[in-house]
């Protein structure tokens, strides 16, 4: 008798498992579902978590204010672990669960899969932080962040104007497309006068000891670092322990958050740390500061810190919301049952129109005014970059 029960249980388990394959979390009624994938576990999870929290914050705010003429939004974020191989599964599941509009992916490499997949289904996506040049390749893809080539060129122009005659070094991550992409464009746009003395050093993988690289770069006055802030902080701390002539560290948007590393006292770094980004996460006033406060009120600052990825995601949700509002005003019909493809056409029309301008928290905000953000037809963002000094040079 006992055995029979066991048998039945075992068979039932099998059925339950197979059944589970066919049930997902279906879209609830009367909402517009925004889907995205990003790293929520593993090494890159800090970016994905900030995006998840910030996007959720924006969705909650919009819903509280009544949504889009009563239609609420819903966020569905899946964990891609920063692995491109996971994207197709997650994307298909999202589509099957009723995703109508998307924030794409948080990071570039999964984004390269995402753009191809979403092209087939014609799903609109506005990625907060996949900076790769190829991400908005097709007409349905847009970026909220600056593209890699854009960042490299902008940084080189700044160097040409401000650091003439100085010795320059580059420290980049050789196996990371973000870092190599920016480095390549930076070197292309840099004045020939620098090239003779240009020092280069690089690292790969999860390496965290940079003695040799510091040796290579120790005679440089300005070091350009198109890398993420964790290795950057390692480099800076280790460089304080040897004699070097470095005056300024100059980073791109990956630097963002360097002053917020728990336990890292940025004043122990004697050099100036500047960066070129679209969001100032140290802002003390203006719309950016308001957002930072809202975020920190809601989430654990230490465990799930905010960075520019999150700010961009917040803007993405609002940009989609505003664009849909414009579309509704123009007489388009948008509701919870609008298909993803129709939604894509509607949004594309708005985003490509000359009159659409979104006021957000990323990009340069003048005082209490929000920044001006618009998009060009190729999906790249047009807004003013902010060059700001994270930390002044120690006297």
């Amino acid at each position, binding site marked *: 008798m006992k*055995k029979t029960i066991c048998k039945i249980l075992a068979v039932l388990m099998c059925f339950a498992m197979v059944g589970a*394959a066919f049930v997902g979390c279906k879209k609830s009624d009367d909402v517009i579902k925004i889907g995205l994938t990003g790293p929520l*576990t593993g090494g890159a999870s800090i970016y994905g978590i900030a995006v998840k929290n910030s996007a959720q914050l924006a969705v909650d705010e919009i819903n509280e204010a009544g949504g889009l003429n009563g239609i609420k939004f819903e966020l569905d974020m899946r*964990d891609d672990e920063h692995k491109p*191989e996971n994207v197709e*599964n997650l994307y298909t599941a999202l*589509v099957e669960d009723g995703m109508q509009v998307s924030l794409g992916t948080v990071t570039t490499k999964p984004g*390269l899969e995402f753009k191809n997949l979403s092209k087939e289904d014609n799903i609109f996506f506005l990625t907060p932080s996949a900076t790769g040049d190829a991400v908005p390749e097709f007409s349905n893809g847009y970026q909220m962040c600056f593209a890699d080539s854009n960042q490299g060129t902008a940084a080189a122009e700044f160097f040409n104007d401000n650091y003439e005659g100085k010795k320059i070094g580059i420290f980049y991550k050789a*196996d990371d497309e973000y870092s190599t992409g920016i480095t390549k464009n930076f070197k292309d746009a840099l004045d020939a006068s620098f090239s003779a003395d240009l020092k280069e050093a690089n690292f790969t993988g999860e390496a965290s000891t940079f003695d040799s690289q510091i040796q290579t770069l120790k005679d440089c006055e300005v070091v350009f670092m198109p890398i993420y802030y964790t290795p950057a902080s390692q480099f800076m701390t280790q460089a304080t322990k040897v004699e070097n002539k470095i005056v300024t560290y100059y980073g791109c948007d990956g630097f963002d958050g360097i002053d917020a590393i728990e336990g890292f006292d940025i004043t122990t770094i004697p050099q100036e740390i500047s960066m070129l980004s679209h969001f100032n996460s140290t802002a003390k006033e203006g719309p950016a500061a308001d957002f930072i406060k809202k975020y920190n009120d809601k989430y654990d600052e230490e465990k799930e810190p905010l960075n520019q990825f999150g700010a961009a995601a917040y803007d993405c949700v609002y940009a989609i919301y505003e664009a849909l509002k414009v579309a509704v005003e123009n007489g388009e019909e948008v509701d919870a049952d609008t298909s993803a493809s129709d939604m894509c056409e509607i949004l594309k029309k708005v985003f490509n129109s000359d009159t659409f301008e979104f006021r957000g928290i990323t990009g340069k905000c003048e005082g209490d005014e929000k920044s001006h953000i618009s998009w060009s037809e190729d999906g790249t963002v047009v807004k003013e970059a902010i060059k700001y000094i994270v930390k002044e040079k120690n006297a």
Partner: protein
Amino acid sequence: MKKFTSLKNYISYIVIGLVTVICVILSLSGVLKASTAILLEEIAIKIMLAVSLSLVVGFLGELSLGHAGFMCVGAYLGGKVAYVLTQQLGEDDPILNIVILVIALVVGGICAGICGFLIGLPALRLRGDYLAITTLAFGEIVRTIFLNTSEESFGGPIGLPTPRFNKEWFYVICFIMVLITLFVIQNLIRSKHGRAIKAIRDNEIAARATGINVTRYKLIGFILSAVFAGLAGVLYSYTKFNVSSQIFDYNYSIEILVIVVLGGMGNIGGSIISAVLVTFLNRELANILTGNLAVLKDIIYAVILIGIVIYRNAPGLKNFREKYNLKKLFSKKKKTAEVTSDTVAKEEN
């Protein structure tokens, strides 16, 4: 009785064939979801990897931690050939696509096979864990080299763009490849060559003494295993728009090894079942645990992994295993307890 054993020999072909046919029928009637088709692709590739690794680990008795390296070679070289040919010849003709796929498979398989030969050579000299670290090192070397190629050749850090086969139907091709893999490897194992390989596993010196050409069989094992890993790599490249070698790190090799060990050493049917279950479990966990719960995914996976391995292998749990055993549960009531425990003991050997 003889009829029964011959049926048992073909059971995996029959099951896989049936599943494929059922899925094709479901696809034709439009019931099969795209996400299930993708899951099937993934499962098929994992089965190929697990079965080919099982040849080295389970039958040849050598620990290999570099299986992802062979896959990487196949994915990159096969994928590159496929990409170039598709660019040159266009991508609209389905027959042409199949021809290109076959060419890519041949190129990927041969290149991976050459690497398998290269790794098989030190295997003749190295023992146990020293060989394991050599294979791990090989995998990492391959990965690092492909990662640092120029953008024009193999894409460098961005990865190699590859053609994506129609995702609604590609699983059929994958399953055909699984059947081919099974056919080759099972026939090899059941032949006199297979017995020679198993003899080397059980006692190399004794095998050599009976006149078995150890060098030859070890190389055959490594090359065949690498060829099928390479083929799986080519198929993998066809399931993605962009292949990046960062995926093929030692963790991926370990993932395949986990599948083989969970399935039982030298048990091809077990490898297939565990490939299906592990892939399925990972997928479901990823889909169910979204948002804040994502961190639980790895914890659950790890606990299940430790639990299963201890349950299946711990000498102290032998009696427990015999008492609560799925096989016993579904076996006919007439069989006595002794018979069941006998089969369990056999399985453990």
